[in-house]
């Protein structure tokens, strides 16, 4: 099966489409960095306009590599599912469209092996995409903007909060966040693979995956109690942004940040379980359907 995986990765690496995702991420990150390097202080003033009087900090250091990475991830991790869908949605349907699926299926591998290898290849692609994002958004930002304490802006309930994390307490949070993002994006990969099983051209499953993610994301962002309670828990997109939880630092009784703590680890853990369950369900349905499928392409 390892050789089958190598073949799959070789095929992905030779397709021009693969590099669209890396190019898109590079372009977006560079634009962010250029914009904040040129005029980041205006952004920071805007964010701090309501807290200027009661918050002590050196604003010149507020825009640093860690802060930049957080801002970039906030934006990119909503868009990256589209890039993952480009590869995963094409996994089976692309082969059917090219006419190579029937040739692969006559090779001495089980259908489960073939589909699982396709999934693994999409998973590895997702990891590589996130590593590339980490290199650009985190390490390049640290190189350009330097390292310092990080400010996190968030709305909790009815109030706006600013959390401050000391610079020696940040890096592990990023590793954890990227790990979480890997699981979250793997859900998209599994969904793409599942839809790919039923189609014989790439466009359908890619568009369908993106549409499902967009639709669910929009619903996930409707902040109405009835949706919050009855709908959001059932949407996997509600858990895609769970990586932010690693940056919500725990506070002590006096409201001071506790180094190395996370405000709500059980919530993050439960979100991870739900995401992993989604991967399992999507993949199981995909394998079941693929094993039963008549290859007519």
């Amino acid at each position, binding site marked *: 099966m390892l*050789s089958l995986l190598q073949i799959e990765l*070789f095929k992905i690496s*030779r397709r021009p489409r693969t590099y669209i995702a890396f190019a898109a991420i590079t372009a977006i990150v560079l634009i962010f960095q250029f914009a904040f390097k040129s005029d980041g202080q205006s952004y920071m003033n805007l964010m701090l306009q309501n807290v200027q009087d009661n918050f002590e900090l050196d604003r010149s250091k507020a825009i640093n590599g860690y802060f930049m990475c957080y801002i970039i991830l906030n934006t990119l991790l909503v868009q990256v599912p589209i890039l993952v869908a480009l590869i995963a949605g094409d996994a089976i349907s692309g082969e059917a469209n090219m006419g190579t699926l029937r*040739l*692969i299926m*006559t*090779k*001495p*591998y089980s259908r489960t092996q073939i589909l699982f290898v396709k999934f693994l290849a999409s998973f590895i692609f997702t990891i590589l995409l996130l590593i590339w994002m980490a290199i650009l958004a985190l390490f390049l930002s640290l190189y350009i903007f330097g390292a310092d304490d990080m400010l996190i802006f968030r709305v909790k309930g009815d109030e706006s909060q600013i959390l401050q994390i000391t610079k020696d307490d940040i890096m592990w949070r990023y590793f954890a966040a990227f790990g979480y993002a890997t699981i979250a994006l793997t859900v998209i990969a599994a969904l793409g693979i599942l839809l790919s099983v039923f189609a014989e051209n790439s466009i359908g499953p890619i568009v369908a995956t993106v549409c499902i993610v967009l639709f669910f994301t929009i619903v996930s962002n409707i902040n109405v109690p009835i949706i919050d309670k009855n709908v959001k828990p059932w949407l996997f997109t509600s858990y895609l942004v769970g990586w932010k939880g690693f940056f919500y630092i725990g506070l002590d009784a006096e409201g001071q940040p506790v180094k190395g703590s996370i405000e709500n680890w059980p919530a993050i853990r439960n979100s991870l379980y739900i995401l992993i369950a989604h991967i399992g369900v999507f993949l199981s349905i995909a394998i079941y359907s693929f094993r039963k499928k008549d290859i007519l392409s």
Partner: protein
Amino acid sequence: MKPLIEVTQLCKKFDQFTAVNELSFTVNEGDIFGFLGENGAGKSTTIRMLLTLIQPTSGNINIFGENLQENRKEILKKVGAVIEKPDMYKYLSALENLNLFAKMSRIKLSKSQLMEQLDLVGLADRSNSKVKTFSQGMKQRLGIAVSLVHNPDLIILDEPTNGLDPQGIVDIRNLILKLSHERGKTVLVPSHLLSEIEIIANRMLIINKGEKIIEGEVNNLLDPSKTIVKIETTDNKKAFHLLTKSGWLEKLKTNESQIQLEVDKKEIPNIIRFLVENNIEINLIQPRHSLEDYFLTLTKSADYVEPFTN
């Protein structure tokens, strides 16, 4: 001869449509087996079932003496196939495609061994060209190379001469004969090119509407004494009447607007001589393919011209 493929009572239904119905046949070791049928007759569905691309509704397939469903992986290791169009990865070169499918067949070949395979199908000089630049004929050749790359015992070549130029057709025909006669391979050739099957196959099966029409030795199924000869002259009416009065009447199969005779091939020169001696100018004399007529008779195609009867 030892049976290599044994198909028994094979059925495939797509909802209410029966694509293959109670089909049974045997391909023996070393055969070049022609699998004939019109478009939609059920050839592709049958081949796809032989390659486990489609699940049969019922019936049994044994290959190499083993049940296909139970020993799928082991059987497929020994099978090479081109199914319908020979589609490859267009963004890869011929050599990369061949190497990729060799690895997929769990064998590792050196570059020189891969080049040998490409040379066998006349593609060595285009080994580094991307498949997207290939003509249909070149893709066909590459497809055949891919089907042979792991040295399989059973080779299934669907319409192997599709898209090839005349020289390519001869080359592939010779390659198939060589694979069978020199290397002892069994070759299954689904085709609608009857002339091709007649030249290369030793046994054949004809199916129509998913059902077997006939199976047997090509030589036994064909009768050289019943060649249909189509004749076009400058004066068909006169030629027709001359032929009816001169002892050819019994052999005339059609009317004066379209002259066809069922004769032994050896009699064709006599017919030409007779017409010329009677001042009939011949525009065309065409022995229609005996297998074609045989096939059309069996399948009752719409194009088939019913024998003339008085």
